[in-house]
């Protein structure tokens, strides 16, 4: 396969071209309540071709490898059409050709575990939840995604690499006094099967939170100082800031490009934010991206100053900034986009107790529950929260979300906790058509923000 693909790209009338071909294996088990809704284990495949020619770019996804040569040729021709319409040619930053394989070596390889065992494990966690009387229903999923990828380009790169993610994730739905609430859990996120084993204690904690939550009062809307737990703080830095550090979104947005020049102060000196695909065992860990560039650590914010951003070869050339190896595609149906790997807020010095003690009237938000951003505006939910009154944690609250504007919120980060923790489930939507990337990690310690809009009733 790789030799045939390499022959196809080198014969193209293009300044640059690449083809990625994937053989993907997925295993899914889905429980809803007591019902086993889905057991599936299967293989699919497909390819994606890109070309730059005459200053323009074109792309194509295809299912049938026998069509690869025809499609690659058509892509090169389309790239010229784009180039002819542009007053400003697209260019690529120099990148060394790579001829190498990147096999995975997980501690315990899920590929060696029988389907029955995976199903029993999901059933075990699901049954633990169903034993709690206030549980209305559950969603418990085992998800495994293995991708064997071949990448070739016109510069001589021939790269063979694997991606593998294993997760057990779910939702605990509880009801009391007519109030229905949802608490999530996620184990795994890495290639290593041991990460989904022996998680009963953590699950018990989540079930207990889910039991309590319908009894909590809804949060009261208003402006408050807040503490975000590592899950919510990781979501905040990923969604609100991280996406604006992906250079493809910024490339053609003059207003934000101007606002986000390297060297711009964005926060107090206590804030450091990094994107690092080399951190072991996290959802966004990888060695090589889908453009044949090695993944590299990028210091995005250093002591409050914007010091880096994530790039493709095209955006690195456009911005005159170093390559970072962040160009990734979910699967062969999609073109690579600039994506965060593992983005995180680095540890600070404050203890959680000290952060709580510093707040007279505020909230503590726990557990990321999805969020949305548009430019510098963001809204995030939390699975639950607590009142903070006179420096003490008060009662649990439900139906709480926060919203605001990125730049003023970054400036309002006033304390950073001393215990960094990473989420075990990645899930980042980007692009049109939307690509939901599971290989996306995020982390943070607890953080305190002096002023955030809390939504509620």
């Amino acid at each position, binding site marked *: 396969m790789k030799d045939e693909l390499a022959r196809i790209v080198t014969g193209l009338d293009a300044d640059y071209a690449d083809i990625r071909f994937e053989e993907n294996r997925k295993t899914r088990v*889905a429980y809803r309540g007591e019902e086993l809704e889905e057991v599936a284990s299967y293989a699919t495949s497909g390819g994606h071709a890109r070309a730059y020619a005459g200053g323009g770019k074109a792309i194509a996804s295809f299912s*049938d490898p026998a069509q690869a040569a025809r499609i690659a040729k058509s892509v090169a021709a389309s790239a010229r059409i784009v180039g002819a319409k542009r007053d400003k040619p697209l260019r690529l930053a120099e990148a060394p050709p790579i001829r190498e394989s990147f096999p995975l070596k997980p501690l315990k390889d899920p590929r060696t575990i029988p389907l029955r065992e995976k199903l029993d494990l999901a059933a075990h966690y699901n049954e633990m939840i169903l034993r709690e009387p206030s549980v209305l229903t559950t969603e418990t999923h085992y998800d495994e995604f293995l991708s064997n990828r071949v990448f070739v380009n016109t510069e001589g790169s021939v790269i063979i690499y694997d991606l593998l993610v294993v997760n057990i994730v779910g939702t605990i739905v509880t009801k009391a006094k007519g109030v229905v609430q949802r608490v999530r859990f996620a184990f795994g996120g890495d290639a290593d099967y041991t990460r989904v084993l022996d998680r009963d204690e953590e699950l018990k904690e989540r079930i207990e939170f889910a039991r309590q939550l319908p009894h909590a009062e809804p949060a009261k809307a208003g402006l408050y100082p807040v503490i975000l737990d590592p899950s919510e703080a990781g979501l905040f830095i990923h969604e609100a800031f991280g996406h604006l550090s992906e250079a493809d979104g910024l490339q053609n947005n003059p207003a934000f490009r101007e606002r986000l020049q390297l060297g711009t102060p964005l926060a107090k000196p206590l804030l450091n934010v990094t994107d690092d695909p080399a951190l072991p065992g996290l959802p966004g860990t990888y060695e090589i991206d889908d453009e044949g560039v090695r993944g590299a650590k990028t210091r995005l914010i250093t002591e409050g100053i914007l010091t880096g951003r994530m790039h493709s070869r095209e955006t690195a050339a456009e911005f005159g900034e170093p390559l970072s190896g962040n160009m990734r595609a979910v699967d062969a149906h999609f073109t690579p986009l600039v994506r965060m790997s593992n983005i995180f807020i680095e540890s600070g010095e404050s203890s959680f107790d000290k952060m709580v003690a510093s707040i007279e009237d505020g909230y503590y938000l726990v557990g990321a529950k999805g969020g949305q951003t548009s430019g510098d505006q963001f809204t995030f939910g939390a699975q639950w929260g607590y009142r903070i009154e006179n420096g003490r944690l008060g009662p649990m609250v439900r139906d709480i979300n926060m919203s605001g504007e990125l730049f003023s919120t970054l400036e309002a980060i006033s304390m950073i906790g001393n215990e960094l923790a990473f989420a075990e489930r990645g899930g980042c939507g980007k692009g049109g058509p939307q690509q939901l990337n599971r290989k996306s990690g995020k982390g943070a310690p607890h953080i305190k923000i002096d002023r955030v809009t809390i*939504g509620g009733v």
Partner: protein
Amino acid sequence: MHNLIETAKQQVDQAELYWNRAHTISVRYENGRLQQIAENDLSSVALRIIDGGKMGSTFAVSPDQPGLIEQAKAAAAHGDPATFSFAPAAEYPSVDGYDPATGRLTSDELVALAESALEAIRSRRSDLSLLADAELEHRELAIETTEGAKGSFETSDISLSFGAPIKGAGMGVYKWRGAVSPFARPDELIDEFIEWYGWTEKISTPSTGRLPVIFAPDAAFLYLLPLWAGIEGSAIEKKTSPLVDRIGEQILSERLTIIDDPTAPGELGARPFDDEGVPCQRRALIENGILNGYLLDRRTASALGQTSTGNAVKRELFGSGTETKPNPWPIRITIDPGETSYRKLIDDLDEGLLIYYGMGFHSGNYPQGQFAVQAIGFHIKGGDVVGRLDKTMVSANIYEDFRRIRAVSAERGPSLAFLNSTTPYVLVDSLQVAGA
């Protein structure tokens, strides 16, 4: 259609083959420049079987991929007993969703369509960082079951979206038009874009408290998705919905009649059968505010002792495609228009909001009918639009707040945000509004 079903008949109790083929071309403009041309040629297959009374599924690129039935059998060996059977033979309506003229278009025509729209905008606003996408899709879906269902249909669609980010804000103003057949430059939509963009240039902060809110067609998902979550079969089966056992009750304002209209001929998204091969049907979900029925696929219908309503769709809130299992979804929602013009809805408001998007929808407790979002839209005062909203939160419970609707407009507009919908502007008597 394919001998896989013939083979399956010999080897398993039941089988269902779903085969989707799509050819798409799209052109994208960023900051006013053509950025890329994309072309996809994709095929995907889902096979579900019942073997030894148990259900299993598998997926592939084509039905010719070797070992499909064996893979599905291996999955079924671990499955639970099947609770439903695959679709029997049925008559399918004709929906006429394919125009060969669309199928024949090339990237050149898409470039021309996008450029004509961008030129028209530039001649009036040369200062904007314009985005545009023009896309076409030719799709063929075939379904066959061992129980006798057998059908295929072709659809074509062409769409154009364009807009620009608002200077100094994270939001933008974007407009979208799609159709089965090729269309000319949508001048009315361009006029509306120019007017709306003009409204964004000043920030205006509304009073805090309860205010009337107009939902533009683009924002219909904010109240339709909570409604979907309340009427979809799984939420009824698992009793997580607030609408369990409430058919025949008044749950929304009598001004709202909400119809699922999958078979309207020549309309975008129309289809003769659902993703399980069950015929689609036009059906009122809400009639004058009264709950008329639930959305069921074969699984949930069987669990509830009813029959499928033909609403099985391979999608979830964030994800869709061949590898997604069928779930109950509306296919083409329409809301009956009213008699008031949308201009008059605005003119008559002392103070209120007109919103066209809400951020953070899925963070809220929408399965219970609630949403709390950052409202994207405009502030209305003394009957005039006085500026755009900034850091304004709007929260609602549709089963309380959407019982009091003052008016729905005569004009209707389309949206593809989460749901395929065609809706009027809906003026809700009052919602909770909070600012920063």
